[in-house]
């Protein structure tokens, strides 16, 4: 059964979110709302130095503060974990360097924000006062701050026991190298570009926090954490601390966003868990906003070299990419894998026969990087979409024409890419045509020409970005081939209660996405019940013991599919009971609107409610059938899904000041079948603004000493609704053949598409002034300088 867009029912409707009343009225409980009388509060003393030996830690002033009870160094805490380190689950190459990463540093601090000591106190306030009063004596060491400096000759070493700052080099080209050389040798046009992906601070609305609550009598521990991954966190905590898994429970309360930064196993989670087991008392920590800037992972951080070879018509024959990626000082959960997630997609949505990708990742004395909304794919899309615009200029055609000449054709699916992926479905040209029409490209170009002709200081620019991404992480066997340390399946249980209410248990862990709403709509349509009669349970390993959580736009395509399949299984069982009750063959039954009917004999019918009750009493079930209506499914997807789209940004650039105003934004996305367009639009709006934020506003700026300069939200410019452009959205669904609902995923699409669209627009606005590139973020000062440089020196 496939859910089609014209099917009557809830799927496809703009149903308001179930989650919102509790969130909007303050009823929802976040980690810091937990009342835990008698809890020990942890304050973390963080390194003020990017690289330094820790010579001494003096806690005497802290211990004089009322309510501060202990000050513990990394040495003091060593017995809690020995050499046990924070986990990295993705050893991308056999020789990848993974230096031991202790929850609290011993001996040397390796980035500003590295934990060097902890304070245990009676309250959060005392913990903060105590942490501020601890005096750490540092012996500064030379720091490696910028990516390219890490691989320069004579660079200081981030890890003294390693030979260099290189973490690994990973490549993808197989035996294709000669063909690539030939393609470049024969090319009529070659584009060679270098782009910078600045570091970004994820800044979810709710910073992190955790609380570990032991039950000493039985040796159990419950870890509450503002995490995206309670299931993975449970396994990892068990492994790192040696707590038997059957004694561990992990709960994610309401979580205020993550964007990937809560897809991790953090020092504080391990620290609180270990201390709680040792002390037999609850131990908790709540991250401060300023603390979060350095203690939570950051995103991006790459230097990209991309080359395109094309024939005289602009048909691309080869793409060659070399990346330098910044790991930061240590590897967190999936740090090394992030560049690889983009590594398959540097050909974008184009049919390019020759493909070469190589990434060298390096350590720097900065906060570790890891997955941040899009994880690898925004970087890939940025590079190829910027380079395609350069190619268009070189060939002398419009951005839309260069894309049209290179798109994978709608008739080419399933399409096997040169990077080795099989793309499920798409119609990239139709999507682009829709976007062009919606954006009124002709009108904008006329306006652009008119402003140029009149010498106006307000230039108009139009920027394209056509993207394809891989979502629905992931077929477990593919992950194995990438040396990822876990599978990519998802689990679901569906139960129907005696009174015909439905309980869905999902292993997918929402932190703002709207799973409860969407899962209810899917199941309601399948069973013919009201979505309000469906309850969705999640985020607690005691309730939902099996799962792999939420990241990489996987929830619907994998977790939602598991729910769909479990519901189908329940219907199959109900059908057998209905056949038994109606004394008919199962094959003669049809099920719609919650009622089983014998085909051709409409009066012979039985509602699901009757079957649910019969399954509960078990008085009269077919021979050998177990009571109750319940089914469990673990779904391992056969392939990724490949959402795609074309976004068009229109900017007005004030050439006197360099100010960029995003005046229009059109997005046409193919995320497959949409369960709830309202939820889809919410994801796309937020995603676009987050991508535009990288293009125009956000930058984790480090000075040459390795200090994060933009460490607060006055200096790190997260845009608000006031900066948002007018979003004009449309869609063009090509249902994915990979899963029964035809869904693909939409959580990262906007972020992946937006940054190149916006920067391409800025460059388009200024190209006649000689500007060919503008670094991100395109701040007014950066744009003004780019114009001045192109015009031959500052004015």
């Amino acid at each position, binding site marked *: 059964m496939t859910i089609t867009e014209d099917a009557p029912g809830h799927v496809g409707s703009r149903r308001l979110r179930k989650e919102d009343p509790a969130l909007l009225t303050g009823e929802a409980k976040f980690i810091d709302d937990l009342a835990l009388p008698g809890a020990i509060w942890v304050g973390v003393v963080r390194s003020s130095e990017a690289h330094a030996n820790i010579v001494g830690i003096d806690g005497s002033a802290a211990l004089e503060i009322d309510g501060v009870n202990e000050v513990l160094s990394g040495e003091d805490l060593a017995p809690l974990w020995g050499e046990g380190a924070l986990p990295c689950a993705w050893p991308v190459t056999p020789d990848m360097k993974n230096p031991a990463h202790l929850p609290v540093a011993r001996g040397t601090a390796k980035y500003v924000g590295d934990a060097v000591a902890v304070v245990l106190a009676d309250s959060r306030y005392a913990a903060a006062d105590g942490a501020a009063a601890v005096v750490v004596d540092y012996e500064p060491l030379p720091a490696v701050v910028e990516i390219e400096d890490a691989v320069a000759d004579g660079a200081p070493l981030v890890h003294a026991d390693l030979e260099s700052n290189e973490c690994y080099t990973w490549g993808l080209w197989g035996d294709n190298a000669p063909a690539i050389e030939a393609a470049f040798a024969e090319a009529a046009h070659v584009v060679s570009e270098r782009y910078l992906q600045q570091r970004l601070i994820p800044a979810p609305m709710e910073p992190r926090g955790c609380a570990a609550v032991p039950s000493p009598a039985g040796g159990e521990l419950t870890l509450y954490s503002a995490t995206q991954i309670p299931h993975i966190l449970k396994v990892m905590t068990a492994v790192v601390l040696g707590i038997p898994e059957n004694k561990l429970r992990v709960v994610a309360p309401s979580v205020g966003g993550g964007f990937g930064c809560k897809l991790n196993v953090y020092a504080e989670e391990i620290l609180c868990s270990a201390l709680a087991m040792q002390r037999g008392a609850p131990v908790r920590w709540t991250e401060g906003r300023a603390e979060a800037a350095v203690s939570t992972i950051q995103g991006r951080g790459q230097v990209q070299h991309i080359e395109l070879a094309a024939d005289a018509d602009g048909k691309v024959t080869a793409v060659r990419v070399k990346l330098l990626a910044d790991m930061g000082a240590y590897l967190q959960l999936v740090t090394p894998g992030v560049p690889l997630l983009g590594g398959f997609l540097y050909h974008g949505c184009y049919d390019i026969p020759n493909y070469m990708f190589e990434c060298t990742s390096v350590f720097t004395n900065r906060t570790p990087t890891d997955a941040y909304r899009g994880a690898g794919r925004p970087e890939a899309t940025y590079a190829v979409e910027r380079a395609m615009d350069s190619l268009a200029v070189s060939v002398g055609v419009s951005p839309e024409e260069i894309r049209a000449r290179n798109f994978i054709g709608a008739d080419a699916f399933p399409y096997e890419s040169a990077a080795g992926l099989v793309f499920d479905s798409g119609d990239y040209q139709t999507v682009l045509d829709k976007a062009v029409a919606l954006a009124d490209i002709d009108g904008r170009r006329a306006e652009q020409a008119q402003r140029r002709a009149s010498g106006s200081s307000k230039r108009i620019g139009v920027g394209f970005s056509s993207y394809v991404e891989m979502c629905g992480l992931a077929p477990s066997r593919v992950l194995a081939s990438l040396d990822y340390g876990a599978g990519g399946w998802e689990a679901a249980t569906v139960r129907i209660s005696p009174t015909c209410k439905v309980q869905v248990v999902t292993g997918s862990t929402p932190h703002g996405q709207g799973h409860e709403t969407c899962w209810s709509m899917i199941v309601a349509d399948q069973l013919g019940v009201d979505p309000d009669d469906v309850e969705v349970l999640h985020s607690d390993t005691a309730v939902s013991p099996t799962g792999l959580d939420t990241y990489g736009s996987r929830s619907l395509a994998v977790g939602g599919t598991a729910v769909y399949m479990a519901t189908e299984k329940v219907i199959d069982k109900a059908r057998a009971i209905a056949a038994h009750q109606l004394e008919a063959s199962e094959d003669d039954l049809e099920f719609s609107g919650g009622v089983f009917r014998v085909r051709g004999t409409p009066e012979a019918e039985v509602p699901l409610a009757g079957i649910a009750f019969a399954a509960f009493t078990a008085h009269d079930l077919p021979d050998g059938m177990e009571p109750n209506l319940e089914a469990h499914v673990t779904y391992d997807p056969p392939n990724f899904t490949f959402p795609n789209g074309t976004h068009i940004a229109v900017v007005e650039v004030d050439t006197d000041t360099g100010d960029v105003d995003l005046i229009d934004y059109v997005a046409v996305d193919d995320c497959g079948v949409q369960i709830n367009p309202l939820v889809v639009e919410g994801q796309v709006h937020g995603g676009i603004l987050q991508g535009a934020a990288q293009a125009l506003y956000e930058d984790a700026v480090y000075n040459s000493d390795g200090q994060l300069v933009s460490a607060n939200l006055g200096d790190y410019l997260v845009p*608000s609704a006031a*900066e948002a452009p007018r979003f004009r959205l449309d869609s063009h669904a090509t249902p994915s053949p990979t899963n029964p609902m035809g869904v693909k995923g939409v959580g990262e699409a906007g972020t992946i598409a937006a940054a190149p669209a916006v920067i391409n627009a800025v460059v388009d606005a200024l190209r006649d002034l000689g500007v060919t590139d503008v670094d991100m973020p395109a*701040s007014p000062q950066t744009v003004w300088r780019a114009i001045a440089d192109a015009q031959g020196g500052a004015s």
Partner: protein
Amino acid sequence: MIPAAFDYEVAESADHAISLLGEHGDDAKLLAGGHSLIPMMRYRLATPSVLVDVGRLDDLRYIRTGNGTVSIGALTRHSELEHSAALAEACPMLASVAALVGDPAVRHRGTLGGTIAHADPASDLPAAVLALGGTIVARGPGGSREIAATDFFTGYFESVLADDEMITEVRVPASSGGWNYQKFNRRAQDWAIVGVAVAGGGAGVSLVNMGSTPIRASGVEAALAGGASAAEAAGVAADGLEPPDDLNADAEYRSHLARVLTERALNAAGVA
């Protein structure tokens, strides 16, 4: 992001506040809207041991006009300036500048007295009062004194206000002549990277975030008085200044912005 411990006192009147300041010395700070002081306390850049809350002194929340003067109580919120019909009539520039401060939440808490006392060179209203030729009324243990805005600001977050003095009122002349305010920032809620206020048809011109205090652009004023065009006068806007260098703008770009924005402000104010 957790402030150091402090005590908290509620002032019943301006005189009570002043006596509490005298009692606690320079460990004490007045708390008005709290939208400059509390962020600094959360970063522990300010660690007063006593806060004297003047936020409830409603008798210092007023806008009075008459005799060519507008008198505004120190505890008047930015949003009250923004929405006052009397102010829109008597001194529209001040109302319009108030509407550009921060975001609605900031404007509903922040006070005129607070923003003047805080003496942030990047703030909007101090520069507007400076361009308008305003007067600040400060009360101390020995009574009140009037300080011309041009004499008030002495340095980065510093003014002539004594530790035991409180601003009670700000006065500006009812405005005549063209005016304009240019605020250049990246997000709607942010302080100006550079701002320019033009009052009285060019008689008063001031600059935001171009030095350690709000700055009266006397070079521009003099050029205009000497018959220069708007473009010519704007050309000297940054002369002799040492603008700050930060993530948004270095000194060279800031100087450029000051010239561009001054010309725009003069043109918009109708200064030929």
